[in-house]
């Protein structure tokens, strides 16, 4: 990757962290500026729109988990972010498949909040293509972690169904990431264990103990705090 590419990646990751911190504040009931005000306050519009796409469906976690009302301006901001970073129509690489699924989650969550009567957009492919074979649970669980923004209540879809059908592979993936001390992956997978618990699906791991362990060890970045806040909310709502 070029120096410019590294700078772009670091800047985008930082902008996404700032936005993730605001979603955490919303989940905790703290005062925060709306999405429109946040985008308007940011000097680099491309950067902040990229952050909007990166946080994606998690922007609507406060709406789906704590009953926040959708601001009509949010629809426009998300629409702008899709225009700024164009959607991949025919995903070829694994990263493009993950991007397509995460975009689908954002669009579905937004559509359900903005217009509940409207039909969901069609999924961008089948779950096996993006997740792989659950027999190869090491790779499969990493792909599941990359799709953590799909672990929101009521979102559903083929990927959620596929993960719900593989609680053992998920538990193995969590254990592996914990042994590797890859806390970023552990936190993403913890969201899935919480969603399984929320939907009363038996699993070999205790998601409460996992969430508590990660609260103590996984660090304090805004992205981690957001994943853990969603995990907690899912466990409390079960």
């Amino acid at each position, binding site marked *: 990757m070029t120096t410019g590419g590294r700078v772009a990646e670091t800047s985008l990751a930082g902008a996404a962290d700032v936005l993730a911190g605001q979603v955490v504040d919303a989940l905790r009931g703290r005062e925060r500026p709306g999405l429109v005000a946040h985008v308007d306050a940011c000097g680099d519009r491309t950067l902040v729109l990229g952050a909007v796409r990166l946080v994606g469906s998690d922007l609507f976690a406060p709406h789906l988990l704590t009953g926040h009302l959708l601001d009509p301006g949010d629809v426009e901001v998300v629409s702008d972010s899709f225009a700024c*970073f164009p959607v991949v129509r025919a995903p070829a690489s694994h990263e493009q498949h*993950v*991007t397509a699924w995460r975009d689908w989650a954002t669009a579905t969550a937004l559509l359900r909040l903005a217009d509940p009567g409207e039909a969901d957009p069609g999924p961008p492919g089948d779950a096996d293509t993006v997740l792989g074979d659950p027999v190869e649970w090491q790779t499969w669980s990493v792909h599941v972690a990359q799709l953590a923004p799909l672990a929101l209540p009521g979102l559903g879809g083929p990927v959620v169904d596929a993960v719900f059908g593989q609680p053992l592979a998920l538990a193995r993936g969590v254990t592996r990431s914990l042994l*590797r001390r890859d806390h970023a*992956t552990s936190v993403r997978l913890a969201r899935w264990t919480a969603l399984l618990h929320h939907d009363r699906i038996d699993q070999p791991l205790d998601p409460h103990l996992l969430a508590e362990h990660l609260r103590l060890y996984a660090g304090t970045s805004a992205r981690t705090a957001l994943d853990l806040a969603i995990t907690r909310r899912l466990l409390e709502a079960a």
Partner: protein
Amino acid sequence: MALHTLAHPAATTEERTAFTALMAPPETPVSDAPLYEPHAAGGLLLGLLISPPVPKEPKDR
């Protein structure tokens, strides 16, 4: 001639590449995971063999 301007900013190629990479974060490449060490037993045995003997209690006391 009408001048057409884009209403929205468009991400550069570098920004798009960075964005796609961040959308699918890989596993942490380096970790402190405990790894299998096939030669650890030999090292342990060698350590036992070259370690100093247990000190003896002096007899003239």
